[in-house]
Every structure is written in structure tokens, then in C-alpha cells.
């Protein structure tokens, strides 16, 4: 196992290196540089432009620039932004990271959940009205023009119905008096959710180990989970942070819903296809013959096995939504990594654009890696250990 993981990590590092090189030279090959903004103001003398180039290191040959970039990269330094000179790229990305992560992980988790649940149901009831309806609606959203859809949703829910806030990720008039910066609250939210999920997972795991599920056990599990959640809320409330967290959640609803609408069909259709294969498997028939309840056959047999290929799609959809992040962020005034990338590219800010692309790349690599590990965890047949498996 460890050898496999190490090997995989090594592979990732090499891939990453090639990726960085590609990104770097791709951006270098683009016309123009940031000193061109000085060309738009005749009062700025040419000397200033030369000084700027020298200051930013643009007067050096590209290969020298690249080597120093790589050297800095492996010491954890992504360079200095040109358009926000001299703020470190790393600093800008870190500022955006919590917002991006919270939004996209929530949205992906939700769209994966919705897609998985719906796909499970429609594959189980193949050919029924719900199957056709969900497929058509899913495809319609899947291929909808995203910017337009988000504008329509904003207009409907925030502007006309006034159920949800219009845009931005926090309400300024509330946060003026906040004792913390928003990123601190984001951080605590992520931390809190992680702790709560681990606790709930532990509760469910320890109580759900047996196969005999009594009502008492289920009730206890629910009560304990609710208790943990309430405790979390209580801690937040006593710290006075709850109202700010709530504000963030409020602002997240619309983008998350939009992302979910756009993305769920991918998981749903994949789950449906995958499950249409597993429902034909003999073990599903066997499970029915065993007189297990329909829901158990569907969930523990058909859906459980169909889940495996869908996990890969979770990663890919995470990638896709990070990629499409720019649209979401622009439409919902949610300043995240996509915005940084877009604006820095428009401003010829190569270090920042490269940094953002590399960062997205690292994120995706980690996601791929996690998917591999998850796949192994979910499928007992896959063993990365290398010990021979009894067969035949």
C-alpha cells in the first residue's frame, strides 16, 4: 500500500512539474506584458516603463525567469503579483482559497448527492415517468447556458421574490461591526463542519456496525448526531459567530443551488447508466430472491456497486465546476480563484495567472489522488498492496 501511494505521489510530482512548465511558457508566449498599461497614459515617461520592466524582472531572458520561478516554486514561493505589486501571489491565492473551497465543495457535494439519489431512483424505476422526466430535465439543465441561468435565478429569487440576498458573499452592513475578518469565519466554518462530520461519522460507524438495525439504535444515532450539530451551533453562538456564519450560508444558497442544477445531471445520468448495469447483475437478483426489502436491494446491492464509477465523476465534476468557477464567481459576486485568474490574465499579470493555474492544477491532482484512494477504499477487489489475491 505504502509503495503504491509513494509511487503515485512521485508520478503526481512529475506531472505537476510538466504542467507548470507548460503553463509558464504558454503564458510567456502571449503577446504584451504588464508594462503596456503605461502606454495608455502619455504622462508616464518611457523611462518609467523601462524601470517597471526592470523592477519586475521582465528584462531577463524567459529561460532565466523560468528557472528562478521553478526554484522559487519548490521553496513555496509563487512569486509576486504584477498587478498588485508587490503582494505575493501566494498571499492572494490564500485569501481567495477559503471562499472558493467552501462554495465549490458544498456545491459539488450537494450536486453529487442529488445526482446520486436521483440516478438511483430513476435507474431502479427505469422506463417510468420519473425516469423520462428526470432525464429530460437533467439534460436541459446540463446543457443550459450557465450565465443566463444564474442571472435568471438571481432575478427570480433575489430580486423579485427577495428570499435570498442579491449577490456578494457577505452582507456588508452586518459585517462592518464583525470582530473577525470573513476568512476567519470561513476557516472556523470549515473546521467546524469537518469536526462535526467526523463526529457524526464516528457515531454512525460505531452504532451502525451491526447488521441488525433496531429503531432504538437508529434513534440514538440521530439524536447523537443532532446533539453534536447543536453543540457545534452552540459553540459558534457563544463565540458570537453564529450570525456571521448564517450570513455566509444565506449568501451561499443561490450559487450552490445554481451549481447543483447545472451539475447534478452529470452524476445522475452516470449513476443511472452504471446502475442499469448493476441491476442486471446476478447478485441483485439473488438479493431479491433472498427476500430482502426493495430499498435494501436497491441501496446495498445495485446502488452500492454502481457507486464506484460515479466516485470518479465526483472528482471530475469538482474539476469542471472549479473550471467553470469564473462564471459562478462573476455572476454571484463571489470573489474566488476564477476571478483572480480572469482578471490577472486580462491585466497581463503572469505570475498571478500562472499561480492560479498551477494552484488549480495542484488541487485537481490532489482530487485525482483522493479519488484513487477512495476507489480503493470502496471496492474491496482493488488492492494496491500487491499481495496476491486468491482466485480460481
Amino acid at each position, binding site marked *: 500500500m505504502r509503495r503504491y501511494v509513494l509511487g503515485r505521489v512521485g508520478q503526481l510530482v512529475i506531472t505537476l512539474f510538466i504542467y507548470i512548465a507548460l503553463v509558464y511558457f504558454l503564458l510567456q508566449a502571449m503577446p504584451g506584458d504588464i508594462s503596456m498599461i503605461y502606454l495608455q497614459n502619455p504622462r508616464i515617461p518611457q523611462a518609467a516603463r523601462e524601470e517597471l520592466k526592470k523592477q519586475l524582472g521582465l528584462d531577463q531572458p524567459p529561460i532565466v525567469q523560468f528557472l528562478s520561478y521553478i526554484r522559487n516554486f519548490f521553496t513555496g514561493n509563487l512569486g509576486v503579483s504584477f498587478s498588485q505589486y508587490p503582494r505575493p501571489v501566494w498571499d492572494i491565492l490564500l485569501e481567495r482559497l477559503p471562499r472558493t473551497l467552501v462554495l465549490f465543495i458544498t456545491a459539488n457535494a450537494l450536486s453529487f448527492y442529488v445526482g446520486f439519489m436521483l440516478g438511483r431512483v430513476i435507474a431502479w424505476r*427505469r*422506463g417510468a415517468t420519473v425516469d423520462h422526466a428526470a432525464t429530460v430535465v437533467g439534460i436541459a439543465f446540463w446543457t443550459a447556458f450557465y450565465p443566463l441561468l444564474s442571472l435568471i435565478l438571481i432575478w427570480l429569487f433575489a430580486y423579485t421574490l427577495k428570499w435570498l440576498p442579491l449577490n456578494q458573499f457577505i452582507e456588508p452592513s452586518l459585517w462592518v461591526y464583525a470582530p473577525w475578518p470573513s476568512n476567519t469565519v470561513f476557516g472556523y466554518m470549515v473546521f467546524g463542519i469537518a469536526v462535526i462530520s467526523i463526529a457524526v461519522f464516528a457515531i454512525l460507524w460505531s452504532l451502525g456496525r*451491526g*447488521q*441488525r438495525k433496531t429503531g432504538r439504535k437508529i434513534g440514538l444515532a440521530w439524536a447523537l448526531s443532532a446533539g453534536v450539530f447543536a453543540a457545534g451551533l452552540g459553540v459558534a453562538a457563544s463565540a458570537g459567530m453564529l450570525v456571521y456564519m448564517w450570513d455566509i450560508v444565506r449568501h451561499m444558497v443561490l450559487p450552490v443551488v445554481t451549481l447543483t442544477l447545472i451539475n447534478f445531471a452529470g452524476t445522475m445520468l452516470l449513476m443511472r447508466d452504471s446502475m442499469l448495469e448493476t441491476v442486471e*447483475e*446476478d*447478485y441483485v*437478483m*439473488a*438479493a*431479491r*430472491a*433472498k*427476500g*430482502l*426489502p*426493495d430499498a*435494501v436491494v436497491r441501496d*446495498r*446491492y445495485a446502488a*452500492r*456497486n454502481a457507486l464506484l464509477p460515479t466516485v470518479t465523476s465526483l472528482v471530475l465534476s469538482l474539476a469542471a465546476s472549479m473550471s467553470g468557477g469564473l462564471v459562478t464567481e462573476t455572476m454571484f459576486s463571489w470573489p474566488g480563484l476564477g476571478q483572480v485568474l480572469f482578471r490577472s490574465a486580462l491585466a497581463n499579470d503572469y505570475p498571478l495567472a500562472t499561480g492560479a493555474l498551477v494552484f488549480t492544477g495542484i488541487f485537481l491532482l490532489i482530487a485525482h489522488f483522493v479519488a484513487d484512494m477512495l476507489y480503493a477504499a*470502496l*471496492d*474491496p*477487489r482493488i488492492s494496491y498492496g500487491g499481495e496476491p*489475491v*486468491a*482466485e*480460481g
Partner: protein
Amino acid sequence: MDALLKVENFTMHYRTTAGHVKAVDDVTFSLARGQSLGLVGESGCGKTSIAMSIMRLLPYNSEIKSGRVFLGGQDVYSMREEDFRKLRWKEVAMIFQAAMNALNPVYTVGSQITEVILEHEPAASERDARERVAELFCTVGIPEERMDHYPHEYSGGMKQRAVIAMALACSPSLIIADEPTTALDVIVQDKILREMEEIRRKTDMSMIYISHDISVIAEVSDVVGVMYAGKLVEIGPADDIFKRPRHPYTYGLMNAYPSILGEKRDLATIPGEPPNLVFPPEGCRFHPRCDWATDECGTVEPPARYVGPNHSVACYNPFPAPSSGGDRIGVATA
């Protein structure tokens, strides 16, 4: 005698885009407690469809045209789905065609058996269930410690044994074994069949063996039914049928397989292929392939008629009866 299973004039079709597949056509038979029935026929002749009909596990595109199935005196198809679900495996269990695939790859073998025990016996605790599985593993000859292994860690024969153990888990009164040993090599096949037979005799269960291999059936069945193209063309006591097959198809089948006991014979094959069940031939469905067919065979379907005690054949020109009569009476055909 009280019949455990009664199938009466059962007709079932599959709706497909090509048309209705007449998979089971007017099949009637019954099975007493403790008896074993062997259903034999080429693949696609409706054996498995009958098994699934008894289990009430027909796919969504099936349609029961007529007939009824009684299990322990209860009409299977008039019960509520939920009520019948609780009877499955407790009353009638099944050993699937491909045991390799009948186990869910993502759970341990043991848990898949305890699961069914816990489902059907509300009183049993998890520990009871595990003890039972250990016993069952012992019975079928799997080391107890392999309970917590995953299916992919089992060999083919062990999976087959595990599936048998699973079928025995709730001590059902009837087990349907659909091609239980087809995928195994001959030696293991034989061993497992013997063991199954032994268990059956010990527990006094009924059993339906389904196979395309008449030699397998020969070994273990009390009664043999021969199916062809959705029809039960001949049914009767095993000895009787093997000694003197009456239907030309049965005869053909017996010559098509080597005896498992190793008696050397020239193998004959039945020329032609089974008919398309969307448009089955007029009259006797076997007549296009039958050497003895007459004009009558091609027009009117031959009715089943008795040719011996409990031995009926649907043929206009059955082979002559053997000199000695049947020795055991156990099968009542309507």
C-alpha cells in the same frame, strides 16, 4: 399426498420489441415435500423462467397469461408483494446459475448470509446468525474463518459452496438450484452434487434442479421434467424416464450428453436449433426437428397424456412403453 409446490397451467410471456416471447406455455406439475425434481432442456427453453415464476422474480416486461402457482398451499401471485417477500428464502431459496456473480463483491460472504438470517428471523441476534453461518460453512465444507473474506478471495468451488450455504440459511422447504454446478469442473461438480443430495435427504427439503445437462439430473432427481420451447413435453419418475424415454426430444437429449458415470456411448446430437419463441411452430413445437413427426404434429398441439404411472408425455407418437412399470409414485400430473 400434500404437494409443496403446484404449478397449474402456467403461461408466461415476455414483451419485447420483437413481439411476445412465449417463454412458458401451459406448464403443469407439482412437487411433494422431500422430493426432488429435475428440469432439463436446452438453454432458452423456459426452465429458468419457471424458476423465476415460482420465486415471483419475473422481470418488468413479463406478463402472466394464465395459470397459478401454489407454494405450501398459498397462491403465490395472489399474495401481496410484501407478504411474499417475507416468504422468499424462508420457504423457497435458490441457488443461482452463476454462483460467481451471485455474491455481492463489496461485502464479506458471511455478512451476506447473516443478513438474510436477520431479515427473516426477527428473533435472532447477530451472534446467533454468525453461529448459524459457521455451522452452515461447516456443513458445506468451508473453513469457518473464511466468513469474513470477500467473494473475490474465494475460489469458484468455494463460492458455489457459499451460495449453497446461503440457500440453506433459513432452512427453506424448497430450494431451486438453477444450473448449480455448470461453471465448475467435472470432479468438483460431482462432489458438490453429492453433498447437496446428502443435505437434502438429511433435512427433508424439496429441491428443483435445473440443468441443460441430463446426466446431472439423472444423478439427483426423483422426478424428471423435460422442457422444450416453453413446454413441459415429458414428466415422470426419473428411473422411468431414463430407462425408457417416451418423447423423441427426451431421447435426443439423453444421447446428446455423456453419462457422468462414464458409460461410453456414441453421442448423437439433435439436428436443428430451438425455435424462435416469438413465432413458435404450429402444432408440436418440436416437430421441425423431430424424425418421427407426422402431418398431425405440424397442425395441432399434442396434449399431455399418461403413458405410465405419473408419467405423461405430450406427443402423438411416443416411443413404446417399457416392459416394466414405474416403481415409485410421487408425481401427480394433472
